[in-house]
């Protein structure tokens, strides 16, 4: 049962990812990206990451993808430009990179020493909001505060960039 859900979620995620990059219409791409993210949420839940699964839905599906849709709407792309979105000149390059990278990944995974160690015993609250929050506000308090600075900089940068004239 677990295996079936894993296979379905990962197949859906990979198929949706492929459709993202071969779609002509950017709006359809965003919808496939949403499908891919939601099926990755299923994988997150299978990995005992309940908090991150919720965060993925709220941040990615709820905020980032809506931002994408807004910008596509603002851009007012012409339909006759859709066909020019994929440049086949770079296809051999892309395939070469993909083969090399996949090969490397497979070799690295199959020769990794990680796989021989015994699997850690997970406590029942692993990955819950409370557990991740404790970690975030004790051990990682300083990096956590730094992310707020990052967000402020990003907000200022976005406002400055999108302004018509300074």
């Amino acid at each position: 049962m677990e295996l079936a859900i894993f296979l379905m979620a990962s197949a859906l995620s990979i198929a949706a990812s492929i459709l993202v990059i071969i779609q002509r219409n950017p709006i359809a791409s965003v919808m496939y990206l949403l499908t891919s993210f939601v099926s990755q949420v299923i994988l997150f839940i299978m990995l005992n990451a309940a908090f991150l699964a919720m965060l993925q839905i709220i941040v990615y599906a709820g905020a980032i993808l809506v931002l994408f849709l807004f910008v596509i709407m603002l851009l007012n792309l012409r339909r006759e430009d859709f066909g020019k979105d994929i440049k086949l000149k770079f296809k051999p390059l892309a395939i070469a990179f993909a083969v090399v990278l996949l090969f490397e990944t497979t070799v690295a995974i199959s020769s990794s020493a990680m796989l021989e160690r015994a699997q850690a015993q997970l406590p029942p609250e692993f990955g819950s909001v409370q557990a991740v929050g404790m970690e975030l506000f004790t051990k990682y308090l300083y990096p956590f505060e730094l992310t707020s600075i990052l967000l402020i900089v990003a907000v200022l940068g976005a406002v400055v960039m999108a302004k018509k004239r300074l």
Partner: protein
Amino acid sequence: MIPLEWFLIVAGVIFVIGMIGVIIARNVMIIFMSIELMLNAANLAMVAFSREMGTLDGHVMVFVIMTVAAAEAAVGLAIIIALFRNRDTANIDEVNVLKW
């Protein structure tokens, strides 16, 4: 319990798809979405390793990556809007002033 390698392979495949997208797509929006795909593949690998090690460090890392992705989306989309306003195109082949 699904073994770690399977999750890593899924993450690797999604990352490679995102990379192909960055190389072959000409529309800035599609390139941007491919970058999001790559970030998400990294997240998946991070969470899988976190379960394997039995620590929550990977979860915190994913939290930070999500923050970076949100910041990157905001700034990047602002750049795209500025680009479209000045050049009236979303095709990166027509944006080549800085090219040698």
